[in-house]
């Protein structure tokens, strides 16, 4: 399969990219192409114009302050895996990045591209949800900042509008006593996950977010109270399987034994991961 005939423009700046995007009714952003490439070839998308934003310097920046790290949308998974960017703490991002797809995918795939695509099985979607990250969105009228929970609206759906692009992802620096855990279950390494769990337990910032991903829709932020979790209590080594199972089953739109089992298992593994990494 070969794509339909389309135009290609390499934007030199965010403003130029936004102008190009607004000039064409059927423009798509190329931010790494690891999903878009196959979709083009399968003709699942048939754009008039592709706007390549990967050469825009601003979008490969990394800004590190004492409280936050902002990563440009076109920073690759591999750059994170290779620890070429500032660490939030607990080596969390690098640990997640190393498990995304295959190295060839990580070389070209980008953080912004992944979160814009909003595939529920994408690692960054669950990871950013656990981190309570903010998405910086640039458009004709400037930049807006959207919390990840508001940015994602469903499977493959975000609040990004026409003529907008993701500029970067802003994440908090993690506290000294943070525990971060991440686990996924997939049929084989590099395959899309059947279940994901991401945990950020950061008492210094009063944060405890436990997320189950690779659902049919949005990442599921577990109810701390219902499960006895919270920033004020130590992160348990294991969760009581019964209540966890009930909690996950309650949130499953269509009952699915296999999905429920792997969600339960992956959550315990993410907890183990959080405790395995030296704090």
């Amino acid at each position, binding site marked *: *399969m*070969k*794509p*339909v*005939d389309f135009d290609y423009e390499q934007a030199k700046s965010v403003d130029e990219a936004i102008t190009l995007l607004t000039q064409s009714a059927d423009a798509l952003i190329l931010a790494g192409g690891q999903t878009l490439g*196959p979709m083009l070839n*399968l*003709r699942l998308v048939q754009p008039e114009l592709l706007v390549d934003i990967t050469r825009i310097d601003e979008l490969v920046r990394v800004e590190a302050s004492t409280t936050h790290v902002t990563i440009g949308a076109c920073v690759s998974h591999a750059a994170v895996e290779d620890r070429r960017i500032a660490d939030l703490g607990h080596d969390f991002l690098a640990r997640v990045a190393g498990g995304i797809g295959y190295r060839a995918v990580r070389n070209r795939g980008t953080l912004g591209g992944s979160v814009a695509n909003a595939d529920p099985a994408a690692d960054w979607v669950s990871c950013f949800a656990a981190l309570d990250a903010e998405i910086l969105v640039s458009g004709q009228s400037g930049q807006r900042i959207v919390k990840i929970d508001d940015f994602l609206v469903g499977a493959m759906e975000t609040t990004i509008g026409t003529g907008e692009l993701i500029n970067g992802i802003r994440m908090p620096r993690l506290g000294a006593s943070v525990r971060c855990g991440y686990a996924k*279950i997939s*049929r*084989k*390494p*590099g*395959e*899309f996950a*059947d279940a994901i769990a991401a945990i950020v337990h950061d008492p210094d910032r009063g944060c405890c977010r436990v997320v189950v991903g690779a659902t049919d829709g949005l990442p599921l932020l577990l109810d701390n109270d219902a499960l006895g979790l919270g920033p004020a209590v130590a992160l348990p080594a294991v969760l009581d399987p019964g209540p966890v199972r009930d909690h996950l089953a309650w949130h499953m739109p269509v009952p699915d*034994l*296999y999905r429920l*089992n*792997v969600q*339960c*298992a992956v959550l315990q593994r993410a907890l183990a991961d959080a405790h395995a990494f030296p704090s």
Partner: protein
Amino acid sequence: MSTHGVGASVLRKEDDRYLRGRGEFVGDIQLAGTRHVAFLRSPVAHGYLRNASIPNECRQQVFVADDLAAVAPIRAHSTLPGFKSSDQPVLASGKVRHVGELIAMCVADTRAEAEDIVDAIGVEIEELPVLSDMLAAREAGAPLVHEEWGDNVFLTTDFEQDLDPIIARAAASVTRTIRTARQSMSPLEGRGVLARWDSRLEQLVVYTSTQQPHIVRTGLSECLGIEHARIRVVAPDVGGGFGYKGILLPEEICLAWAAIKLGHPLKWLEDRRENLIASSNCREHHYTITVYGDANGKLLAIDAEATVDAGAYSSYPFSACLEAAQVVSILPGVYDLEGYRCRTYAVATNKPPILPYRGVARCGVCTALELMVDALARELAIEPTEVRFQSLIGPEQMPFNNITSKHFDSGDYPESLRQVIDTIDLDSIRSRQQRGEADGRRIGIGFAMYTEQGAHGTTVYANWGIPMVPGHEQCTARLTPDGGLELRIGAHSHGQGLETTLAQVAHEVLGIPLEQTRLIHGDTAITPYSTGTWGSRSMVMSGGAVACACDELARRVLRIGANLLQCPVEAVRLKDGAVQGAAGSIQLAEISRTWYLKPQELDTEADPAGLEVTAGYKPERDSGTFSYATHAAVIAVDPLTGEIELLDYVIAEDGGVLVNPMIVDGQILGGLAQGIGTALFEEMVYSTDGQPQASTLSEYLLPGPTEVPDAQIIHLETPSPYTRFGVKGIGEGGCIAPPAAITNAINDALRAIGVELSVLPVTPRRIVEAVAAASDSSLGKVTT
């Protein structure tokens, strides 16, 4: 053993070009003026073609069935009694019978533009009820794939015996339903065709990624109505065959027809989407099977009914019957049975036509029988290996004619089982199981055994009566004036390493260094006719032919050498690449040069036949060589998530004398990877309306490097009594047993919680559901 002849693990000659990316595949061949083809394929599984609307601006670039009215349909008949033939139109006419069937051929300067034309064509299809399940297709009153048949059964095959007296003596019996999935063969290189008309020679030249260039030529000749002399088929480097390329393609016929009509070259390269949606074509078996055993665990009898989903048409040349008909003859496996009854059905459905995938029929048969061996052992509460020891054909019985008259040529089956048990250390696995696992997983061990009939020839295939029956295999061997050796064979090498192993065979006879021997294959213009590479036959058949041709070359070289040395031929011998006599020795290169360029130095009575020989070969018996092996897998399974880890894998195989043991190891490991795919990953699911549910490799999962364990391979060596050097075919065996060994291991692991799986692939979801069903079941034994 010489260091470069038969038995030497020399590096493969062909790997230098492959590893440097210098192979030349169909997609690499560039011909000036080439235009590209994309096919409009049926979006529905079954229906009447009513109307195709083709935009006027591209009407000249689109070809449909009416345009190809003079082209004969593909017809692969079998003379087996009751076989119903199907006519497969090259482009669909009247009816479409599976998703992906060709409807129109679109030609443009680029593939993308050809696909634009495909998208612009509107096609109306009046949909018909779809047969997506072979068991439903067998039922009376089912919709018909081929109306004129009256039912959907290509062929029914029987082996009848009165089992009642044996059943009366049996201490135990078990009955199961076993199912294997439809798979899509996945060579790295898909199919591809480049066709052109050579106006100088008035000859059609077709480059195609095939295992059988000569058979494709014959098929093209029949369908296009052109004599063989005006067709040349070239199979260049081919990136994996596995049976996927053992077929005359409708696409080949379309491009050949259009190249003649349009006068410019045409290229079509299959993409992965076409591969998955239009050509998922193998392995789908269903068994209802009962085995009977005595109290010691000796297998007494098998009673089985097997159904094979043969898809919509009978493929050329192997036909729709080969798989199902072979099931009847090979289901008894490696065991000495008293009783056997089996009926098989090859059923037509609205799916792509079945093709023989590596380990044809044997993979399903081995899965069915070896799962039953373990089920019987569980029933009797004895070790599964004990049932096998009780039931195996013994070495003292060899050669052995089994219950279906298969002639097992040689071997020591129990010894291969013993060696695997020792190497994998069955006792330690049992102890570990007793201790349990700290992480909550369960450990299991599973065994499976099989024979692999290879190089079966004329008498076997004459019985099937399919469009081709192999006879003598030929080789043309030619000494060149500089002392080099050219070997020309009609079979094809696409991963088997024949460029190396056949040079080793020639070296064994003539002593010519491997680097001075070149194998020429894959071109009908310059190689002897052959049915091609399939059925684990090339080492036996082409190897034998190379040896025979080299024998004759040796005789001629000795005569010339004796002539030059002025001594009787009885006084010289061929050694180390030279003719040696009492008075001196002459290098082969000198003999060649003399024959071709300095004939004045030879006596007038020198043999005029020269230094080019075509010789034919057949083994002393053509009923086939019987390689065999025992596989054993140790796995860990997580009952909560269904995750499986392969902890250990051991294979003890006997392929007779191995020409190159390293290449054999490669064949076995590649087969193992494919067998793991069958066991755990590969499944083309069809919706009830016949739509394939995977169109990319993210939905159709293949095992990768991380899923294939580092297997230990043990070689036993029982030379074949019937073949040159005692070789046996081993190309397919690696993939036959893994599904059974791995599934048996999973069932062993889950036995204590009452779980037994018998549907392949054994996915995590199937395991989880079976575990849940077992815990819900008062019987505690559940088959999913």
